[in-house]
């Protein structure tokens, strides 16, 4: 009851805060003026003012999306792909030049963030992308060509319930990971009944310690905010009692049944495993409405050839497979495409490493990006935003303990002026008596500080834009004709893909996930049609059924397919290539 009451008050404060922020933004808009010298990068005087040095809740994200739509109706459209468990809209912003062809027929890229509730900054990166490309469309040729030819589908947060729960309720930097679908974690028949308790009411769940001459922890003499294990022969000062909280349900455990216990990123249908194999897996794949909405959306957009998911943290550009049992899915030819893009990312994202999940991170069954590639054949990465490298822009030394957090305290001390850590303070705990609470604030350690957010957004966006750029682009490179006896004409056409990603990854073509590319001849009665297997030797394979519409399994990245027809008539003939993931293109013979 008490918890509910404090929740309500928090929610009220949150609402007031939102209103204030929105008003402040409206005012600041008038104050902004065009600077004398535009820095390279962001637009000088954007139509949509957004401060990229802070984090936004769902309502604010939606407000920015709608402002972008309003300012650029021909480039951006906001729709909902479904509702969250708590009934929040899942906003999608589709970005493309809508007056240049059907956006859903252009090669597309899907981008999302925030699948893990506390890993919020993916939403800002994703939204920055929509903002940047719409603002830059009129002044930057590269961006203009991109939006003319391609489509971005951006869902900044696919976990809106728990994003707001993370932001507006007391939490650690790591809680919650799940959405807000209630689950009984401790087997007592009640769900979510033993959550954290914010003992000092500061909105952060920090650590509890109790003075204890028999404890085995001591304060660091150089920085007493840091707790260190006592040395083997050193007397201790404290016992650590875990995160702020009470034993709310009286079972002798503290904070053992908070919101969720599942992992939304173990809920995807590809290589899904039950929870005795994969912790965090739930009843069955796509049990959560948020993920199901995303999957249903992607299943209807067969033009999506690329995808990106944003997490935090660690500075990684991840590809599948998530589990060793799925190695066979990732074929060498598709891995070449991944490698090209992954290495490009490493160049653009200092401190980030291109890694394979099962091998370089840990095993994941039922992860989002494995579904996107495994079930849909879409080239997909997942970036872990924010890395230890960013603190002082140096790699961790080989002998440094990766769990040593002294770098964070140091950074906090000399760059954040001790804003990021709650100093130890006494509070009264109804079950433990007098304890002290203190430690990292929730908006610190896994998320970038204000002055580094824009840098993170821009670099990660650039990586995704190049990924989008390299979605297939099909063209009819040439159509040539040769007169044959009897009023027949031989028509020879070269169909090219001028980008790195093939029109069908091998995973796609071997499982027939999307239909083949169609190369169609019009302007004459087709007698025969064939695809050349060796254009130098002229070896061809006839397509008996519907020869006027040749079915091409895939057009390789930076590659070509050669086709030949024998046609009644003299032309001119038109050859059209129609690829679900690579677009369409027509060329007429001379």
């Amino acid at each position, binding site marked *: 009851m008490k918890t509910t009451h404090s929740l309500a008050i928090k929610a009220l404060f949150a609402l007031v805060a939102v209103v204030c922020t929105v008003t402040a933004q409206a005012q600041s808009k008038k104050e902004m003026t065009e600077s004398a010298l535009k820095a390279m990068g962001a637009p000088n005087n954007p139509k949509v003012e957004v401060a990229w040095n802070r984090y936004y809740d769902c309502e604010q994200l939606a407000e920015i999306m709608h402002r972008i739509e309003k300012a650029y109706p021909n480039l951006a459209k906001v729709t909902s792909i479904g509702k969250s468990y708590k009934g929040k809209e899942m906003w999608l912003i589709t970005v493309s030049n809508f007056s240049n062809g059907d956006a859903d027929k252009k090669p597309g890229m899907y981008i999302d963030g925030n699948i893990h509730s506390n890993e919020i900054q993916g939403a800002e990166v994703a939204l920055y992308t929509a903002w940047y490309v719409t603002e830059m469309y009129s002044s930057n040729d590269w961006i203009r060509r991109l939006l003319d030819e391609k489509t971005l589908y951006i869902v900044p947060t696919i976990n809106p319930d728990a994003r707001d729960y993370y932001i507006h309720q007391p939490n650690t930097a790591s809680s919650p990971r799940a959405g807000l679908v209630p689950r009984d974690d401790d087997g007592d*028949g009640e769900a979510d009944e033993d959550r954290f308790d914010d003992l000092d009411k500061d909105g952060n769940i920090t650590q509890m310690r109790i003075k204890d001459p028999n404890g085995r922890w001591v304060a660091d003499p150089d920085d007493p905010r840091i707790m260190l294990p006592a040395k083997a022969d050193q007397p201790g000062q404290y016992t650590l009692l875990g995160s702020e909280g009470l034993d709310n349900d009286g079972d*002798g455990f503290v904070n053992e049944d908070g919101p969720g216990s599942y992992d939304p990123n173990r809920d995807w*249908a*590809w290589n899904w495993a039950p929870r005795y194999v994969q912790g965090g897996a739930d009843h*069955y794949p796509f049990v959560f409405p948020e993920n199901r909405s995303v999957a249903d959306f992607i299943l209807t957009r067969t033009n999506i050839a690329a995808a990106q998911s944003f997490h935090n943290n660690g500075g990684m550009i991840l590809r599948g497979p998530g589990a060793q049992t799925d190695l066979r*899915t990732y074929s060498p030819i598709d891995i070449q495409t991944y490698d090209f893009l992954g290495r490009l990312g490493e160049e653009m994202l200092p401190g980030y490493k291109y890694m394979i999940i099962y091998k370089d991170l840990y095993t994941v069954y039922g992860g989002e990006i494995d579904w996107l590639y495994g079930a849909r054949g879409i080239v997909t990465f997942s970036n872990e935003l924010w890395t230890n490298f960013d603190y002082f822009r140096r790699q961790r030394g080989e002998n440094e303990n990766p769990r040593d957090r002294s770098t964070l305290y140091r950074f906090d001390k000399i760059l954040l002026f001790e804003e990021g850590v709650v100093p130890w303070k006494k509070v009264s705990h109804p079950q433990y008596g007098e304890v002290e609470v203190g430690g990292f604030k929730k908006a610190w350690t896994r998320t970038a500080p204000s002055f580094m957010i824009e840098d993170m957004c821009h670099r990660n966006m650039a990586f995704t834009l190049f990924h989008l750029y390299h979605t297939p682009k099909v063209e009819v490179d040439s159509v040539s004709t040769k007169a044959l006896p009897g009023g027949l004409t031989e028509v020879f056409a070269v169909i090219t893909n001028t980008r790195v990603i093939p029109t069908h990854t091998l995973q796609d073509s071997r*499982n027939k996930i999307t239909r083949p590319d169609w190369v169609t001849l019009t302007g004459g009665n087709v007698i025969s049609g064939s695809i050349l297997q060796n254009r130098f030797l002229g070896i061809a394979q006839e397509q008996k059924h519907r020869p006027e519409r040749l079915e091409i399994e895939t057009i390789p990245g930076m590659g070509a397919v050669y086709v030949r027809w024998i046609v009644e008539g003299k032309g001119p003939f038109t050859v059209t290539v129609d690829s679900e993931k690579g677009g369409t293109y027509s060329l007429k013979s001379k």
Partner: protein
Amino acid sequence: MRRMVETCITVLFMMFSCSVLYGQAIPSKYHTYDEMTSAIKNLAASHGDILKVESLGKTLKGRDIWVITLRKGVAEKPRAMLVTGGVDAVQIAGSEMALRFAEHLANTCGKIDSVTKLLQTTTIYVIPRVSPDAAESYFERPLRERSTNFRAADDDKDGTVDEDDVDDVNKDGVMSMMRVKDPRGEWMVHPEDARIMKKADPAKGEKGSYLLYTEGIDNDKDEHWNEDAIGGVDFNRNFPFNYQFFSANAGVHQVSEIETRAVAEFIFDHPSIGAVFSFSPNDNLTTPWKAEPRRPSAAGDAGASGGFSGRGTGGGGGTPFMRPGDEAPNLAVTSVLEEDQPYYEYISKQFLDITKLKDAPEPKKGTGAFSDWIYYHTGRWSFSVRPWWPPVAARRDTSGGDMARRTRPPTGRAQAETPADEYTEQLRALKWYEANGYKDAAVRWTKVQHPDFPDREVEIGGIRPFIISNPPGDSLNTLAQPYAKFMIYLAGQLPNVSLGHTKVEKVNDNVYRLTLDVVNNGYLPTNSGLGVRVRWPRNVYLTLGLSKDQSLASGRARQSLRPIKGNGGYQTVSWLVVGKAGSTVTVTAESPIAGKATETITLREGGRP
């Protein structure tokens, strides 16, 4: 054991009596969706005190997925069993058996003690037809076997949906098989029965002389016949255990369909369901599941299918993408756990004893099958059997179902003279129908003019749809009885928690040691081994309620217990309570599956209030 058999025979006798005594409101015939709906609603109207009907959702064709709840008394009862029919829609007889089970309980509750007692302590849920759109194919004309719903699917992945369905070429109202005389064909006439086509085995000196297709026209002119039929997704291929991505009728992913999701949600919404009985081809009642040794899985074992590595996904074999050291540990449970196997064996034995059924065909190994999923992923006990199979050529005993064959010892699997193969069922079916005077079990092979094969000898014929899996409608009521009897038995085997051996020792005027046993009087343990792993079925939770002036000097006030074996298995728990003499504490043991037991205990030497 002897007593068990006697009891069974007694119950059996009662069953036949009751069908006479209480009558059968439901006629012995197959029910269309509309007829089934009225039958269910009639039951609800006439037995409103113990039976209610609800919809789990509407299918693409707007049909309701009905669930019948049977329970005596108003309070929500823990301990429940779910019965499902029509898991394989072609086995519509299972749907009819499930419906008759509900009717039997409704009719006999209050009249037969065992049924009354069962419904006082246990809730029975019946979903008679899990995939009603698919099941309706039994009644549609032209007649065709269809196990899928109507979800549009581009089966041949050519960019066009459902463009090459089967066709009733000879306009006889039945979708049969179509054979084309061709020396290059791989099919031959079965030597034992000319109505059956058999694939020639060159290794056995056989040579084919026919091409064989389902009846139809190459509507999209791609030289494939009926390769992109209307619909859909098969309920029994859409569940996550051993799911096969990209395979025929499996859906775009696991639990993608209205029907499968509705049933899956129903099960997770009802934690009291401890056992599920389903009519399906994935029979584990005539042949119980066996624990198989775990094998290391090759990398990519699951990857080929995209599903989690499950039983039958092939093993070993290297792949071109593997390097040394790529072998992955196989963490999935792919055969019944050793600790659960004896329960499946025992229940199977009871099934054969009670029903007297025998000569069952080989159980089908499922991919994405419902009954496998129940055990492997939800952790519930899962029992499944076909609703019917063609008996070995004896004439049907019209007086008493399968009673006539009771004299032979139940052996489960068929003891055929020649080794059973894929044609055994067809051969038996045709013989049985013939022996029992049914003339149209097969459509006689008849020549037709076929537009796709001008100047060729094309014949249409073969086994009539549905007859292999479904008995004649007039025998349904008789055949349903042994199943009903077994299901009543099975529901009585659920775990049942109680408290016993309560002991209070006075340590001091204000300190008492309280010891008691949490006992399971049911047959099944309070959780299955798989349930313990997957952690969806709750273990028994034990609470000691103290008043404000009492406290614990030892033990926990709330705790989750380990599984407790059945038939009197117990777990002893002890607390040291600090409290005044004569004051009371309350102990509650409960789990949704095993029920609830509460006892108030007074703090004084010897205990009880």
